[in-house]
C-alpha cells in the first residue's frame, strides 16, 4: 500500500506520471479537483466559514502533524505563515527525490483555488529550498504584502539563506 510516511515521495512522483499523460493542464486539474476539492476538504470546512481563524486552526494542526518548522501570525486584516523548514520539500531534498520539475507549485495549485472560493487572495514567495511565506487577505481589500520583518520576527525573508534559492513570487490581485 501507499504509505503516509513517504507520501511526499509518491505524491511528487504522481505529478510527473500525470504530466506525461495529460501535460501541465492535467497536473493543475489534479491539484484543483483531486487535492483542493477532495483531499483537502477539511481545510475548506475550516477556512470558508471561519476565515483567518480557520486558517490558524487548519495550519496549526497540519503543519505540526507534518513536522514543519514554521511560524504563523494573525493580524487584523491578514494571516501570515513563514515556513523555515517545509516537511514536504525537505523530505524530497533529503531523499534526493525529483521527478516533477517544480514540486513547490502544488501548494499554490490547491491553496489558490481554495482561497479564491473562500474570498481571499494570496501573496506568496518560495525559494525551492523548503522555505516560503504566505499572506492571505480578503479579496478586494487594498494593501501590499508586508515588508520583510514588518509583521513578525520569524519572517523567513530575514534569514541569511533565504536568497540562496530560486525565489518564485505570486502577487495577489489588487
Amino acid at each position, binding site marked *: *500500500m*501507499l*504509505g*503516509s*510516511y*513517504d*507520501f511526499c*515521495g*509518491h*505524491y511528487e*512522483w*504522481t505529478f510527473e*506520471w*500525470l504530466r506525461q*499523460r*495529460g501535460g501541465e493542464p*492535467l497536473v493543475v486539474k*489534479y491539484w484543483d*479537483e*483531486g*487535492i483542493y476539492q*477532495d*483531499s*483537502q476538504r*477539511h481545510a475548506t470546512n475550516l477556512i470558508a466559514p471561519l476565515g483567518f481563524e480557520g486558517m490558524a486552526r487548519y495550519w496549526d494542526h*497540519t503543519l505540526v*502533524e*507534518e*513536522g514543519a518548522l514554521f511560524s504563523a501570525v494573525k493580524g487584523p486584516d491578514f494571516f501570515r505563515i513563514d515556513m523555515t523548514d517545509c*516537511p514536504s520539500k*525537505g*523530505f524530497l531534498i*533529503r*531523499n534526493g*527525490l525529483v521527478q516533477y520539475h517544480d514540486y513547490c507549485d502544488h501548494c499554490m495549485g490547491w491553496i489558490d483555488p481554495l482561497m479564491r472560493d473562500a474570498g481571499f487572495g494570496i501573496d506568496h514567495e518560495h525559494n525551492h529550498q523548503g522555505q516560503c511565506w504566505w499572506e492571505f487577505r480578503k479579496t478586494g481589500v487594498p494593501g501590499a504584502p508586508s515588508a520583510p520583518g514588518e509583521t513578525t520576527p520569524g519572517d523567513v525573508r530575514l534569514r541569511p539563506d533565504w536568497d540562496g534559492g530560486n525565489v518564485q513570487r505570486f502577487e495577489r490581485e489588487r
Partner: protein
Amino acid sequence: MIPSSQAPADLSALPYHDTKPQGAADFYFGINATFRFIRTKFGLPGLIAYWRDLGTQYYKPVWTRWQALGLPGVASYWRAFFAAEPGSEVTVHEGPGEVIVEVKTCPAIRHLREHGREIVPEFCQQCYHINAAAAEQAGFDVRVTGGNGSCRQRFFAPIGGEPAQNLEEITRC
C-alpha cells in the same frame, strides 16, 4: 513462523527516511483522492496502470532490496513500513518460502472511516497491484485476501501452479 513481535522493526529497511517516526495520517486523504482522480480521468484500467507503474518505478529501491535480501528483506520491509504508519495493527510472519502480512487494522481505511471520507471502492486493490508489480521484479509474487480494514497478504517465491489472484477476494470499500 516468526511473529513480528519477536522481530522489531528496523526503519533502515525503508528506502526513504523522514525526521519524524511516523507519517501524517491526513495524507491518507490525499492517497484516496488521488485514486479517485485517476479513476475518474482514466477509468479502472488507468488506475491499475498507475498502481503497477508505482510498483515497478517508484518502488524500485524497495524491490531492489528484496532482490538482494530475499524473503527476509520482504519481511523486514513490511515491519518497518507499518511501524511508520500511524494507527496500524499488523503482524509479519516469516515461514518457509513465504512472508505473511496480517493486517488487523489498516491505518488508511481506519483514518478515512474515522473522518467520514468516501473511499474509492477498489482502494484495497492497490495492495495487490502495487505489491505484485514490485514483487515480480524481485522474483516473488503476492496474493491478497480481505480488505476494507483488515486483510492478509502472502508474499512467496512462485514454484508454479499457484492460482492467479482472484480480485473478487479483495473486499471492496
